[in-house]
């Protein structure tokens, strides 16, 4: 297995802001690499450098063997880009959008016409393919956008938040399709704010924070970094939240996290059942009413919280 994406000590500055401060990562062939991180972590800057939309200030990056600066032209022939920063043309039909992209990849006319037809069918756009994109729903546009990135059957596909704002069914379809592509040999780099998406698709996850790589590994490896488990208490009365947090801190383990919306206090712990029992006793002694108390395996969300100090997004996409 050879690396299709190689990034070494990559730096990018915008005025006084250091968007990337020495990023290293590797994406293996026919694997999905997910970039996770809060807004402003540098995910999009990294994608824009890897797709030649931005030039790095320092460091090196190669995609499909092509340097992002020295071999930018060859690199562009090997990649596809879709997501929040690539757009489709509203005043063209779906088919026209796809065929023009094929022309700009310098595919022969017969080839791009056939590819456009195949992709319209694959993305359930066959019936609407000859209508103007202006009339498409958000989900149809996103599917067309992804289809456009696939016209030239790229070796490496960049998907920048591909399912943001999609309804669950469309999202599931897109996930299944990405899995198919990867099974057929495509390398995918995906940025996402959804843990569920990263968990489902990614072979490897890179968590970015403030322009650096906070951690990387498989989902399981990352979960082990947090510690064995999370002790979670949900208070019945919101006014007890502060006392509950203090009480959890006394038990000790890791850093306590309070989620006011969920009326929940979390504590990473390696203690297991005895800690749970001890905590139950203390809550009872303190007279804090609980709706729920338990020990659970850490979720990717906990990993993220542990590494970046914030929860960035809801655990699953909202229906747009």
């Amino acid at each position: 297995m050879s690396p299709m994406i190689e990034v070494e000590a990559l730096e990018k500055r915008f005025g006084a802001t250091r968007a990337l401060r020495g990023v290293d990562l590797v994406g293996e062939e026919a694997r999905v690499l997910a970039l996770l991180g809060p807004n402003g972590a540098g995910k999009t800057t990294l994608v824009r450098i890897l797709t030649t939309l931005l030039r790095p200030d320092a460091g090196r990056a190669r995609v499909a063997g092509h340097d992002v600066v020295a071999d930018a032209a060859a690199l562009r022939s090997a990649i596809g880009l879709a997501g929040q920063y690539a757009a489709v043309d509203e005043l063209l039909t779906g088919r026209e959008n796809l065929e023009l992209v094929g022309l700009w990849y310098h595919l022969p006319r017969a080839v791009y016409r056939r590819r456009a037809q195949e992709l319209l069918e694959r993305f359930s756009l066959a019936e609407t393919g000859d209508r103007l994109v202006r009339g498409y729903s958000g989900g149809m546009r996103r599917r067309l956008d992804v289809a456009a990135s696939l016209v030239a059957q790229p070796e490496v596909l960049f998907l920048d938040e591909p399912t943001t704002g999609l309804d669950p069914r469309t999202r599931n379809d897109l996930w299944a399709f990405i899995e198919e592509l990867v099974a057929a040999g495509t390398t995918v780099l995906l940025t996402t704010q959804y843990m569920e998406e990263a968990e489902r698709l990614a072979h490897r996850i890179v968590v970015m924070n403030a322009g650096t790589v906070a951690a990387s590994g498989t989902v399981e490896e990352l979960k082990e970094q947090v510690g064995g488990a999370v002790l979670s208490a949900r208070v019945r009365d919101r006014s007890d939240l502060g006392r509950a947090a203090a009480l959890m801190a006394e038990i000790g383990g890791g850093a306590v996290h309070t989620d006011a919306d969920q009326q929940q206090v979390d504590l990473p712990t390696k203690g297991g059942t005895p800690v749970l029992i001890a905590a139950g006793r203390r809550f009872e002694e303190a007279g804090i009413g609980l709706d729920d108390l338990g020990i659970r395996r850490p979720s990717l969300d906990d990993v993220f919280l542990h590494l970046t100090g914030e929860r960035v997004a809801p655990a699953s996409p909202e229906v747009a």
Partner: protein
Amino acid sequence: MRAPATTRRSGGARRLSPALAATDTAGVAKRNLLRIGRTPQMLVISVFQPAMLLVLFRYVLGGAIRIPGGSYVDYVVPAVFIEAVLIGGMTTSIGLAQDLKSGIVDRFRSLPMARSAVLAGRTIADLARSVVSLTIMVVLGLAVGFRFHNGLAPILAGMGLVVFFGYAFSWMYATIGLATRDPETAQVAGILPFFVLMFASSAVVPVVTMPGWLQPFARNQPLSVTVAATRALMEGGPAAHDVWLSLAWSTAILVVFFAVALRVYQAGTA
């Protein structure tokens, strides 16, 4: 953009063959022509503005302006032809700024297409729009009393000069669109050169009526020499001097702004 290493320009811009660059440009031109065809209201607006100016000059101001040895309508209508193609150029800046804003330019940049194709395809499509607009102005001009007084060949040469002038300026407007990155700002920024060129010139009133300090500029700036050349070609009279000046101006503007626009376009990747 601000990094010290910007002296090595456009790295990896492995030159595409001219044939592929032409294919890419044709693709962009096709895209923009389809868009023009599907937003007829834009075409109507870009024709409406010079038509309004035509009516204004012909019927509102024209009565107050005396042209030695000729009629004002024959004097001003060639200027309206030039306005029509300049306004066509303004749509270039607005369209490009829109493309930058919508993110479609990012898609273009991530594709292996020729770097110049996005700009060349756009200006060529807008040129087609300008030709339509110019044709309509000819019809309107004839309707309000304008008459050609020369042979078909010089008249067509005059049209060619106007179209070439408009095409050269569409590269200046492309630069404005790329630099402003916002359709509204591009529109406002584009009006300024339009007014300077149009009114500090021999387009609507003879230069001799202007203050002395303004006359040298008003006499020699690109729009003035082009309108003088166009009048001579359409109405008769010695044309060669102004034709050469106009060609020189338009060529210089085209070359300079082609280079500047391309540079600004690529600087977006810095």
